[in-house]
């Protein structure tokens, strides 16, 4: 077994185990750690496929930003993130949906696995295939317009995330304006405005 095959086997096993842990873990923190394992496995496979730039991007963006964001949100939510759901009304639809998806995707996988591929081995690649320099040149020549669109998308997403997550705190916490001394008191000012005794007990 060559070193490449060994790396592929290790990364594939890491990907599959991490994906299974992500989906089945009851505690979402364990799920986030499974996602991290899958991301590292896929980064290793990228390295195997001569995509060094994407390996770095995968590790920086996914392992460094996305998983950390998940863990931050899990910390913000605290124990509520793993409390069992109080209602069970969607159990049948979930079972039907998941079963149908598993059936169709396993059929598709069987047909793909049984097909005779004409692409047996990888051919030779250019020496700069997938390096930072080559992909960067491509991004800033052919993909320049799309790159700028991606930057606009990220800016809009960050501003939108802040706007959605902050909610309406600004309007709710408006300071109460005191116009007369009566605003300082919560109850009735004169005794004759007070409700008769016994009515608040009846309420």
């Amino acid at each position: 077994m060559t070193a490449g095959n060994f790396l592929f086997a290790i990364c594939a096993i890491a990907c599959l185990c991490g994906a299974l842990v992500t989906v089945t873990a009851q505690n979402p923190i364990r799920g986030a750690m499974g996602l991290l394992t899958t991301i590292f496995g896929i980064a290793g496979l990228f390295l195997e496929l001569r995509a060094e730039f994407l390996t770095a991007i995968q590790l920086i963006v996914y392992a460094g930003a996305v998983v950390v964001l998940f863990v931050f949100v899990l910390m913000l939510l605290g124990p509520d993130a793993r409390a069992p759901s109080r209602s069970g009304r969607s159990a049948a639809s979930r079972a039907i949906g998941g079963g149908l998806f598993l059936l169709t995707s396993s059929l598709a996988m069987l047909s793909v696995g049984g097909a005779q591929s004409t692409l047996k081995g990888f051919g030779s690649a250019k020496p700069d295939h997938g390096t930072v320099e080559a992909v960067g040149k491509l991004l800033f020549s052919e993909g320049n317009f799309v790159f700028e669109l991606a930057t606009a998308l990220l800016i809009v997403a960050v501003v939108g995330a802040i706007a959605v997550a902050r909610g309406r705190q600004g309007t709710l916490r408006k300071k109460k304006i005191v116009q007369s001394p009566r605003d300082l008191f919560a109850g009735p000012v004169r005794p004759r405005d007070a409700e008769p005794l016994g009515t608040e007990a009846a309420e």
Partner: protein
Amino acid sequence: MSGLSDNVGNYVILASLIFTIGGAGFLVRRNVLVQLMSIELMLNSVNLLLVAFNRAHADNMVGQMFAFFIIAVAAAEVAVGLAIILSYYRLKSSVFTDEADIMRH
């Protein structure tokens, strides 16, 4: 020489397995955070497939460029999705999709 690591079919099988696990998790689980992680699994499997086919047709690098933009879109999606989850949690004190019934009926 055609081992494990230089055959596109192996990568196709692996990516479809990860995609299936992610899709089933998205459909079966009720926790919104786990559903978002399942979406990340599916996006990662598609990235793997793009890079593998780009390695098979190694005369250009368009597949890697596509994977790069998919990573950018996934980062934006996670930011907005987690903000929506926080907003929903503030509203309902819950992170489960079957309790999101404010707009029902």
